[in-house]
C-alpha cells in the first residue's frame, strides 16, 4: 500500500528518528500538545456552554465567539504542529492503533459540527444573539462539540496505554 510506505518513510526520516530516540524531545512535545489541547477544549467549552444557554447568558453569542475563537485557533495550530511531530516519530504504530484512528475520526466530526454550525445555524445569529434562549440548532452544536472533544481527549489518552499492543 502506497500510504503504508508514506508512514514508514515519515518514521524513518531524520526528524522522525530524532524525536523517537531523543530522551527529551517526545515528552517535551507531548507536554506542549497537552497545553495546546487544554487551551482548545477549555475555550471551546466556554463557547459551547453559552450555546447551550447554561452560562454567560448576559454575554452576546457573537461577542463570546470573538472572545474565544482566536485562542481556540491558536491552541489548535499548536496542537496540530505538536501532534504531527509526535505522529512522525511512530507513524506506523499510530496508524495501526484503533484509538488513534478513533481520535482522528472525532476530530473530523468536531470540525464538521463546527462547519455546519458556522455555515447554517450562524446565518440567523442576529435574531438570537442576546437571547437567553438558544435555538435548537445552536444547542445541538454546543452539545455535540462538548461530546466530540471529550472523546478526542479520552481516545488521545488511551493511545498512550495501547501503542505497543497493535503493530
Amino acid at each position, binding site marked *: 500500500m502506497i500510504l503504508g510506505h508514506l508512514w514508514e518513510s515519515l518514521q524513518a526520516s531524520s526528524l522522525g528518528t530524532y524525536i523517537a530516540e531523543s530522551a527529551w524531545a517526545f*515528552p517535551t512535545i*507531548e*507536554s506542549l500538545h*497537552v*497545553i495546546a*489541547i*487544554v*487551551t482548545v*477544549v*477549555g*475555550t471551546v*467549552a*466556554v463557547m459551547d456552554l453559552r450555546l447551550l444557554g447554561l*452560562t*454567560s447568558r*448576559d*454575554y*452576546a453569542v457573537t*461577542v463570546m465567539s470573538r*472572545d*474565544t475563537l*482566536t*485562542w481556540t485557533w491558536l491552541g489548535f495550530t499548536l496542537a496540530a504542529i505538536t501532534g504531527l511531530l509526535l505522529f512522525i516519530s511512530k507513524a506506523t504504530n499510530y496508524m495501526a492503533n484503533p484509538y488513534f484512528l478513533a481520535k482522528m475520526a472525532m476530530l473530523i466530526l468536531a470540525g464538521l459540527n463546527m462547519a455546519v454550525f458556522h455555515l447554517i445555524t450562524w446565518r440567523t445569529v442576529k435574531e438570537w444573539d442576546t437571547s437567553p434562549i438558544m435555538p435548537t440548532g445552536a444547542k445541538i452544536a454546543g452539545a455535540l462539540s462538548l461530546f466530540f472533544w*471529550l472523546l478526542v*481527549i*479520552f481516545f488521545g*489518552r*488511551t493511545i*498512550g*496505554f495501547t501503542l505497543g499492543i497493535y503493530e
Partner: protein
Amino acid sequence: MSFSDVLFAFTEWLRTTPLVETALSISEHPLSLLIASHFWAIPIIQTLHILALAAAFGSVLMINLHILGLTGKSRTLTQTVKRFQPWIWWSLAVLVVTGIGMIIGEPIRELINPIFWIKMGLVIALVLLSLWYNAALSRNMVQWDMTLRARAGVRFGAIGLILLWCAIMFAGRWIAYAPV
C-alpha cells in the same frame, strides 16, 4: 551537575524516606488493587483530570487574557472574574480528587517520583499566588477596571499565573518519564 543528575539524586533520597512504606501500603489497599486490576481505570481518571484542566485553564486564560487586554474587551473585569473564577476553584477540586485517584492507583510511580514532588510544589505556589493575586484584584477591581492594564505589576501577575499553569501541566506529563 546536570538537571537529570539532580533528579536522580532526588529519587535516591525519596527512596530513603518513609514514603516508600507509605506507597507500598497504599498499593496493598483494596481500592489500589481495584484500580490496578481494571485496564480502563487509569485512562478514565486521567481523562477526567485533563477535562478538569481544560475547564480550569480555559477560565484562567479568559480572566488573565482579559487583564492583558487580549480578550473580553466589551466586558468589565468584575464581570469576567465573576463568570470564570468559580470554574477555576471547582475544576481544581476535581483535579485534586482525580489526582488522588491516580496516586491510589499507582502510588510508587507518583510518590517516589521527583517530578511529582516538583509538580506538587508548583501547585502549592500556584494556589498561594492565585489567592494573593485575587485578593489584590478584588480590593481594587472597581476603580482599577479602566486603568488596570496600565499597571506593570498586574500584567506581570497575569502572565506569571498563565506560565505557572503551563509549568504544572509540563511537570504533570513528565511524571511519566521521570527516572524512578
